C-alpha cells in the first residue's frame, strides 16, 4: 500500500513535470511565433483542430505516432544499459529493405506466415546491426556512438544502391523496390488512412519491453548493468551478454519499425522512407523518461504535432518549422526537470517559505531516483 502510494506520488511528480515542460514549450513557441509576426492562437488552433478536431485528424496523429513509438522504444531499450543507439535510423532502413525483399520476393505463403516472416526479417537485420555494434565495442573498444553514426551513413548508401540498382523495378523512375505481395501487407485499420495494425505491434513491443525490464530476472540484470557495470560483473552477470541482448532488441525494434513501414504504409522500400524517425526517437524516448509505456504517450504527442503541422501547412502561412522548434524546446524542457523547478520557483519565490520548497525538492529527488530505475 505504502508502495503504491510512493509510486503514485512519483508518477504524479513526473507527470507534473512533463505537463509543465509542455506548457512552457508551447508558451516559448507562442512568443517566438508572435515575434515573427504570426498569430500564435491561430497557429495552435490550426494544429489542434488539424490533429484532434476530426476523426481523420486523430487517425493521422496515431499513424504518425506509430514509427515514433518504435524508434523511441529502440533508443530507450539500449539506454537501459546506458548505451546510446544513434543508429536507429540505419537499423530502420535496413529493416525496411529486408521487409521489402522478403515481402516482395517470397511468394505463395499464406498471410499468417508471410506477415510475421516479413516483420521478423526487419527485426532480424536491425538486431544484427545492433550485434555488430556491440561486437565492435567489446572487441575493439569502438564507441557505439561513433559506429552507429558511421553505420547510418553506410546503410543509407547501401539501401540506396539496392533500390536504385539491382532491386529497382525496370519501369520505375525513382529509387524503390518492387511492391510487396498482398500476403505481406498489414491491414489498414481505417479506410483512407496510413494507420495500420503496425500500431498494435508497436504498443505490444512497448508493453513487452516494459514487462521484460520490470518483471523478469533478465530485465533485472539489464537494469543492474545499466546502473553499475562492475557490480553486475561481480554478480555474475555477463556485461557483453547484456549489451548484446539490449542492443539486439534495440536494433530489432528499429528494424521492425522499418519493415512495418514497408508493410503498412509504403508497400515497398522507397528512398526516404524514414522521416528522420530514428533521430526523433531520441527525443521521444527522453520525453517518455525512457519508460516504455510513457513512450507510447510521448510518441503520440509528437504524432499530434506532426499531423497538426500538416494542416497548419495547408491552411495558414505560418512556416511549419515552428512545429520543429516547439519539439526541440519540449525536449529541452522535459529533459531538464531542474530547469522547470527553477522556472516554477521563480514564480513562487515571493511569499513561500523555504521549507515548502525543500519539500518539493524532496519529491523531485524521489521522482528522479525512481525514474532512473525505470519506474513510474
Amino acid at each position, binding site marked *: 500500500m505504502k508502495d503504491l502510494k510512493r509510486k503514485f506520488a512519483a508518477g504524479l511528480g513526473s507527470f507534473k513535470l512533463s505537463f509543465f515542460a509542455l506548457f512552457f514549450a508551447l508558451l516559448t513557441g507562442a512568443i517566438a511565433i508572435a515575434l515573427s509576426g504570426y498569430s500564435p492562437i491561430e497557429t495552435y488552433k490550426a494544429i489542434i483542430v488539424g490533429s484532434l478536431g476530426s476523426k*481523420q485528424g486523430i487517425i*493521422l496523429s496515431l*499513424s504518425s505516432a506509430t514509427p515514433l513509438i518504435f524508434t523511441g522504444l529502440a533508443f530507450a531499450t539500449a539506454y537501459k544499459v546506458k548505451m546510446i543507439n544513434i543508429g536507429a535510423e540505419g537499423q530502420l532502413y535496413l529493416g525496411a529493405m529486408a521487409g521489402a525483399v522478403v515481402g516482395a520476393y517470397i511468394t505463395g505463403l499464406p498471410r499468417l506466415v508471410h506477415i510475421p516472416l516479413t516483420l521478423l526479417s526487419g527485426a532480424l537485420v536491425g538486431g544484427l546491426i545492433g550485434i555488430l555494434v556491440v561486437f565492435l565495442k567489446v572487441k575493439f573498444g569502438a564507441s557505439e556512438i561513433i559506429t552507429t553514426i558511421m553505420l547510418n551513413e553506410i546503410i543509407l548508401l547501401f539501401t*540506396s*544502391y539496392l533500390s*536504385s540498382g539491382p532491386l*529497382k523495378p525496370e519501369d*520505375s*523512375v*525513382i*529509387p524503390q523496390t518492387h511492391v510487396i505481395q498482398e500476403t505481406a501487407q498489414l491491414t489498414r485499420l481505417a*479506410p*483512407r*488512412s*496510413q494507420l495500420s495494425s503496425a500500431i498494435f505491434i508497436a504498443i505490444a513491443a512497448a508493453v513487452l519491453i516494459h514487462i521484460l525490464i520490470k518483471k523478469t530476472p533478465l530485465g533485472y540484470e539489464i537494469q543492474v548493468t545499466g546502473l553499475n557495470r562492475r557490480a553486475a560483473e561481480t554478480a555474475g552477470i555477463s556485461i557483453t551478454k547484456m549489451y548484446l541482448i539490449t542492443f539486439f532488441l534495440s536494433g530489432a525494434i528499429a528494424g521492425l519499425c522499418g519493415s512495418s*513501414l514497408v508493410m503498412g*504504409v*509504403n*508497400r*515497398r522500400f*522507397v*528512398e*526516404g*522512407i*524514414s*522521416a*528522420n524517425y530514428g533521430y526523433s526517437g531520441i527525443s521521444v524516448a527522453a520525453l517518455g523518461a525512457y519508460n516504455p509505456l510513457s513512450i507510447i504517450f510521448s510518441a503520440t504527442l509528437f504524432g499530434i504535432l506532426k*499531423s497538426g503541422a*500538416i*494542416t497548419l*501547412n*495547408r*491552411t*495558414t*502561412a*505560418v512556416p*511549419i518549422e515552428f512545429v520543429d522548434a516547439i519539439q526541440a524546446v519540449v525536449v529541452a524542457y522535459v529533459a531538464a526537470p531542474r530547469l522547470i523547478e527553477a522556472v516554477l520557483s521563480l514564480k513562487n519565490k515571493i511569499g513561500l517559505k523555504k521549507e515548502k520548497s525543500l519539500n518539493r525538492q524532496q519529491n523531485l529527488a524521489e521522482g528522479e531516483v525512481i525514474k532512473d530505475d525505470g519506474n513510474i
Partner: protein
Amino acid sequence: SGGDSPTDSEGAIDNEIKIAMVLGEGGLGDLGFNDEAFEGLLKAAEDFGISYDYVEPKSVNDFEPQLRMFAESGEYDLVIAVGATQVDAVKLVASEFPDQRFSIIDVAVEGYDNIHSSSARNPEQHFLSGVLSGLVTLDDRLPYTNEENILAFAISIDAPIPREAAAGFMAGAKYVNPDVEIIYNFIGGYRDPEKAKEIALTAFDRGADIITHNAGASGLGVIEAARERGKYVIGTSRQSADVDYSLAVSVKKTEQMVYKEVESIVKGTWQAGSSVYGIADDVCDYDISGLKVEIPEDILEIVEDIKQEIIDGKLELPYKIEDVDEWAARNQYKK
C-alpha cells in the same frame, strides 16, 4: 500554405477554380524542380485568376496524407502532385476518391480515370546542352576553354531520372564530338553545395572546361567552382544561372507542365491520361537568353540544326549512361 489568387485581394473572383499542389520532398527553395513547379502554379493563378493552396512535404510518407487531405475536402478542382516520388501515393488516393482529379508531374501514369500525368523525356533536357558543350570545348574562340577534350557532369543523386538526364548530355556531346571524355560524379543530394563545388573543382583540375549539373541548390556550389576557376557551367535553373560563366541552361520546363495542367482545367479540356513532352513540345530545350557568353554563330547553327533533327523525329536518344557509347557509335552528326 494558403495562397491567394491575385484577384482575391480585389474582392472579385474571376472564377471559383481552386487548385491544390503537393510539392516534392523538401519543398520550396531547391532552386530547381519544386521552385519551377510552383512558378508554373503562380503564373497560372495570375493568368486565370484561380486560387490555390499548397503544401511542402517533409518526407515521402507525407504525400499520402497530404494528397488525401486535399481530396477529402472536396474543395479542389485539381490536385497537382509534383515529382515522381509521389506516384504510389497519387495512385492510391486517386482510387480512394474517384471524383477527384489529380495531375502528377515528372512521371508517366496510365490507366486511371482521374489521373493525368505530365512528364518529360529526360535525356532531351540536357541533350542540346551536350551538343553545345561538345562543340565549345574544342573551340578556342571562347575565353575559358582549354586544350583538353574533357567535359564534366555533376549528377545530383544516383537515381534513374538524373541518370537519364546525364545520358542525354553525354549523347549530345558525343554526337558532335565522339572522342570527348565525360567525367561524371554523383553529389548525393540536392542541398550539398559544398560537396558539389568540390566535385566541380576536381573535375576542372582534371581538365574539364565545361561542367553541367542537375542538382538544384547543390548546383550553387558548381557555379561557384566555375567562377573561381574561370570555367563554364551549365545549370538547370535560370534563377541561379551566372551571366558570365553560364554557357547555357538546360531546361525542362516543369513550370510549363504545371501551367498546362491548370490551363486544361480552366478551359475544361482536362482529361485523364499521360502526356510526355520533349524538345519538340518546347518543354525541353537549352536556353541562352540573358547570358553574356558569346557563343559563335556557327556553333549555335549546328545546335539548332540538331534540334531540328530531334523535332523531326530523326533521333532516338539513349536513356542509360551505359548505352551512350554504343549509341554514339551508331549516331554521328554529319553536316
